[in-house]
């Protein structure tokens, strides 16, 4: 099929255009998303095409409008709600944790809840402690939520389409630092199944699991590792939950080593979840302790050097992977 190069922002925008054209029940809800096209411009052009009825600008009332999205999903619509930064989940967390996540269970399957909450994650742009968090594992720790963290345009578009079509609530996390990342997409932006990891680099000595922006840092590290004679396999989980544990375990059975690089919390976060799952299923294959590389346990600092220090980078990954393979 015809290939094209798009940024993640463009791919998401096209996916929304296509999905909304195909299905009248899809609506978008959020702050400044209609005429303004969203602060990250992901919803640009949609209001001109689909009108104010389907592109709904709201007051700064996240609890009310996320809850409205949940209720709308219960009653026949497929809302795509934009929560500008995932840090703002705090002001509407009940609607996410108790209402969206639990409704299907509480109905014992009688209700569908085709809700997507699009939000952002990712430090690195000097946005400070309340506009930079990566809360994917906070969401993933809540039973009932699906959590997606795409890292390239084709995945972003394909997973967004799948998320919109899915019957349950999905938290769809777009990394601010990746909006302008370019990559090839095939025409039609085919849907990509939720819950499937992707091996983005094959290798034999160590498995590196890294989602979203961290996948790119891992890829950069792999080059250096390669020149040092270490062959690293990199897995992008794409969906944080349900996690494709099988793909990771298969890889670790081959490499014998696991390093999880993650921008989320170091305590009870995604990295710990992967390590525990792999330990349970592939302990015998592990040649050394499974390790993680996460930011220090502090809020995201503002000043550039401190923020740089805070985020794991490819030098950190090289060092960690080297230590593990030498041990």
């Amino acid at each position: 099929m015809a290939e094209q190069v798009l940024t993640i922002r463009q791919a998401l925008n096209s996916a929304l255009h296509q999905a909304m054209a195909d299905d009248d029940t899809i609506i978008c809800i959020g702050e400044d998303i209609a005429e303004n096209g969203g602060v990250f411009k992901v919803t640009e052009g949609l209001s001109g095409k689909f009108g104010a009825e389907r592109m709904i600008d709201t007051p700064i009332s996240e609890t009310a409008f996320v809850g409205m999205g949940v209720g709308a999903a219960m009653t026949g619509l497929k809302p795509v709600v934009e929560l500008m930064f995932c840090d703002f989940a705090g002001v509407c967390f009940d609607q996410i944790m108790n209402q969206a996540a639990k409704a299907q269970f509480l109905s014992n399957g009688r209700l569908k809840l085709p809700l997507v909450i699009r939000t952002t994650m990712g430090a690195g742009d000097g946005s400070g402690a309340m506009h930079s968090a990566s809360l994917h594992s906070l969401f993933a720790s809540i039973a009932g939520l699906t959590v997606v963290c795409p890292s390239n345009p084709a995945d972003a578009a394909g997973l967004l389409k799948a998320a919109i079509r899915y019957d349950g609530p999905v938290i769809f996390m777009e990394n601010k630092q990746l909006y302008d990342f370019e990559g090839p997409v095939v025409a039609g932006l085919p849907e990509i199944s939720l819950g499937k990891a992707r091996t983005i680099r094959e290798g034999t000595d160590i498995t590196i699991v890294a989602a979203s922006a961290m996948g790119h840092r891992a890829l950069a590290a792999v080059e250096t590792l390669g020149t040092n004679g270490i062959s690293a396999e990199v897995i992008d989980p794409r969906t944080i939950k349900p996690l494709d544990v099988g793909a990771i375990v298969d890889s670790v059975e081959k490499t014998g080593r696991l390093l999880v690089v993650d921008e989320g919390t170091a305590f009870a976060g995604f990295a710990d979840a992967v390590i525990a799952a792999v330990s349970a299923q592939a302990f015998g294959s592990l040649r050394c302790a499974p390790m993680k590389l996460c930011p220090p346990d502090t809020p995201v600092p503002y000043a550039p050097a401190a923020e740089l220090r805070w985020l794991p980078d490819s030098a950190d990954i090289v060092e960690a992977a080297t230590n593990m393979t030498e041990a």
Partner: protein
Amino acid sequence: MLGSCRGRTMNEVALKQYQSCWFIRSFEKAIAVQARAGNVPGLVHLSTGSEVADILLGQQLDPTRDHVTGSHRSHGLALACGADPVAVAKEILGREGGLSDGLAGTQHLLAPETGFLTSNGIVGAQVPLAAGGALSANTAAVGGIGVAVFGDGAANQGAVLETMNLAATLNLPMLFVMYNNGMAQTTAAVDATSGSYCARAESFGLTAWSADSDAYTDCLKTLRDAVTYTRLGSPAFVEVTVSRDHGHYFGDEERSEFPPSKAMACFAKWLSEQGVKDQLLNTARCAAEKDAAAAVAAAASAPFAAANALSPWLGVQGGTDG
């Protein structure tokens, strides 16, 4: 049980409503008996005292296009919306065949087929959900409305206040119904809320009414007007004065000093004044009591939901199951 009222005289309709009120009251009484006997898994919040409001509201609504959400105290409202009484009772008692096969329980009654979307364990959280119902009805242009029923205590939650502004801003067909029973758990409404509720709603741009469920005709007219107004496409608010005839939850003895609801006595008096014979009133009440007792008895004799009620949900998300 709580059937339709088309093609009847006004007195017939009212008598039927009266019977439905007694059905709720008797249903809650039977649930209380079950609770005292230890047959209810946790605590239950009874609707006793808001029956008249529940029924008068429920009868203004259309199950095919309206979407209703309620609070932790919504047994009566769910029944008034037409939820199957046996399935409701089974859910409250944690039995197989409950609305959600016992997984959800007293605070989470879901009967979307009747328009009663869900009740809620989090005070106020049901209110944004009803805005979603209003949005769906609006988008589908079916003339439906969203209705959120909540308490005086909930009126101080951000979720409720934000939604008032949101509904007004988007001009949603959404009706906010606040049951003022004067109490939130052990806190008196007057101690927890400054200002008047109607003024508050009006300040958000909602058209507001208040009514006392002791006054049958007034309450009926107010709810009917409010639903009609909302159905024309704009958000509105109604404060209905009700009572809470038990404590906060059943068994919460300390609050038993609350006076019994006058609403049903007032309703009966009004019916008498319209010329409805006492005997008819008694017959209605007895029929309701019998039906309600039978529904709860049927539920109580059903088996508790088994451990495997959980089975369909295991591994759904791929989490590690214990």
